């Protein structure tokens, strides 16, 4: 606008202004700063002593209630397994679908546990990765009492009793496993996708979805280069970073997705994307034209683990529920709904049995599940699968920026 026309404007430009407010705020901030000048305490925990663990559990009693925090779509809507648990044990439950992302969930609970308070959940479920590692390192996970988990010890598969991130099953029991591979929409992609190279193929320019999680995308960068993520070093991460950066700069990637990738694939916004197996399988059963493949170069296997957070109110009830889920019949009922990889191998036979008795649609989908490599991977398929590299805190500070500078450019 034309300033010469507006006297109010002229006045405003030339008027003196009080600076008192600014000084007042500065003074208050300085006082507060002096108060808060002490640092944020670290909470690095020692490995638990056997006696201390025993003492802890000896003092605990059953309270008849448990609060279970889990991810969405990880429990049938009627919550039948939990209802049966309540009938069998007399422990009433609250089931809350509050976890959508490991980092975000950990970011929320960290300040609470750091302050020595309870987060209000007796069981939480976290993926093996940086955040779970932090939970253990910071002493946020209650060491488990092995005498209270007979079903786990009897029924869990060997792979699920020997996990590199929790040797000796000190803190966690797996809830379910899944595979990160490639999903593609067969309406748009005519080829049979087999290789991870397709995610880097200029043919699909602007139609490729990658995940924004640093660990997930790092693994795929390394698979593409023929590197083993579990044994990777800083140099490997840098190479993978270069590869992924070139993919982005060539305009091949449309977007770095969180859980929303699956909608993008089924809508056709992206044609081919990094994907989690169970999501794709659920969509397939819903009749959508999506396919999932574990690339021949390799895929990522991850495990979501149940643990009892520090200061939980009802640890005995929590471990009872965690162990209850390892009864084969319960595990089968659960897996029939969630359609990921169950840690209880006996489930496959139970579902097969159920399929022979079932009829019609139910029979067909049960048969599909039993034969699905996404729910029951064979040894050959397991051999292609790798988990994430284990990172120290110092390494994490190198690792994260390499990949975040790609996904958050």
């Amino acid at each position: 606008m034309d300033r010469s026309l507006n006297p109010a404007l002229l006045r405003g430009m030339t008027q003196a202004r009080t600076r008192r407010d600014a000084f007042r705020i500065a003074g208050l901030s300085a006082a507060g700063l002096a108060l808060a000048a002490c640092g944020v305490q670290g909470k690095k925990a020692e490995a638990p002593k056997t006696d201390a663990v025993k003492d802890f559990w000896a003092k605990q009693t059953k309270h008849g209630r448990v609060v279970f925090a889990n991810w969405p779509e990880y429990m049938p809507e009627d919550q039948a397994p939990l209802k049966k648990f309540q009938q069998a044990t007399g422990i009433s439950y609250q089931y809350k679908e509050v976890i959508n992302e490991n980092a975000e969930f950990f970011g929320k609970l960290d300040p609470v546990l750091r302050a020595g308070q309870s987060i209000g959940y007796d069981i939480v479920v976290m993926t093996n990765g940086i955040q779970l590692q932090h939970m253990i390192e910071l002493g946020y996970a209650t060491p488990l009492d092995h005498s209270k988990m007979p079903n786990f010890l009897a029924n869990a598969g060997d792979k699920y009793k020997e996990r590199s991130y929790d040797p000796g099953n000190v803190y966690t029991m797996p809830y379910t496993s899944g595979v990160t591979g490639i999903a593609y929409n067969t309406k748009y992609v005519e080829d049979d996708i087999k290789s991870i190279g397709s995610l880097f193929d200029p043919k699909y320019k602007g139609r490729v979805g990658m995940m924004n999680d640093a660990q997930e995308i790092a693994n795929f960068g390394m698979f593409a280069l023929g590197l083993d993520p579990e044994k990777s070093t800083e140099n490997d991460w840098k190479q993978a970073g270069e590869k992924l950066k070139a993919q982005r700069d060539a305009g091949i990637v449309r977007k770095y997705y969180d859980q929303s990738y699956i909608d993008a694939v089924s809508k056709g916004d992206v044609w081919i994307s990094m994907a989690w197996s169970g999501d794709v399988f659920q969509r397939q059963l819903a009749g959508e034209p999506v396919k999932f493949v574990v690339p021949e170069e390799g895929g990522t296997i991850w495990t979501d683990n149940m643990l009892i957070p520090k200061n939980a109110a009802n640890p005995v009830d929590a471990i009872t529920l965690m162990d209850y889920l390892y009864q084969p019949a319960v595990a089968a009922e659960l897996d029939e709904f969630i359609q990921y990889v169950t840690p209880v191998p006996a489930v496959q036979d139970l579902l097969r049995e159920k399929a022979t008795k079932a009829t019609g649609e139910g029979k067909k989908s049960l048969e599909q599940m039993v034969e699905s490599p996404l729910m029951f991977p064979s040894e050959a398929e397991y051999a292609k699968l790798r988990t994430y590299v284990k990172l120290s805190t110092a390494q994490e500070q190198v690792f994260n920026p390499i990949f975040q500078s790609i996904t958050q450019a």
Partner: protein
Amino acid sequence: MKRLTPYLLALPSWMWLAIFLVVPMAAMASVSLQTGNAIDGFAMTFSVSNYTDAISRYSTQFLRSLLYGGLATVAMLIIGYPVAYWIAFKGGTRKSVYLFLLLLPFFVSFVLRTISWGFLLADDGVLFGPLKSWGLLAPEFHVLATTFAVVGGLTYNFLPFMILPIYVALERVDPRVIEAAYDLYATRLSAFRRVVLPLSLPGVFAGVLMTFVPATADPVNAQILGGTANTMIGNIIQTEYLTNLNYPTASALSFTLMAVLLVGIFIYARALGTENVLEAVAQ
């Protein structure tokens, strides 16, 4: 006692400010100068380099956020002013109905509305699907995952905060001063330019303030509607806080953003000649 009464009455609000604004800000200022990591703890080292490192590392996202915030604010002004004008002067007896309609979509959560744009604007969605199958659009045409989508999302999401203050300012314009302008042989255009527009400026000022600040800091639109090169500073701060647990860098970024916005606002306040920033916002 009587002399103290006003101060005592004001005490609760001062306490509120002290507890929920000053203390957290001071704590954040302190953290922004510490070094360490979440596992071993952070210690106060007065390292100003947290700021310089954070700014040099994320200058791209900073400038981008200011650009997107600015573009969205201009777009909101261009769209919002005529709407506010129309409701204030042509709305007649149904003014409140129009205002209600304007606010109606905003009874739904912010994130949900943004996600719905994702569905509406999907490459082969309800809007572009038919247009593409009729050959009106190229098959590779897309709006999602572009800068346009992010700025558009920001514009959409904060629009009422632009319209409402402008509406309030226009509503208070005395019709008699406009009549007086016509009596003095003003044309419609010059009556608007020399009477209505200056009188509505406090509203414009408040509207810009209430939209530019949140639009610049917003992480949601970039995350849901953006592509590979649309990350805004809000997304970075979120990642630093929640994913990397790098509290010092996140705090330093937050403070820098706040400082940049405050400086911008004061320069803007001076340029627009508004007597007092807070007074304008209060309107």
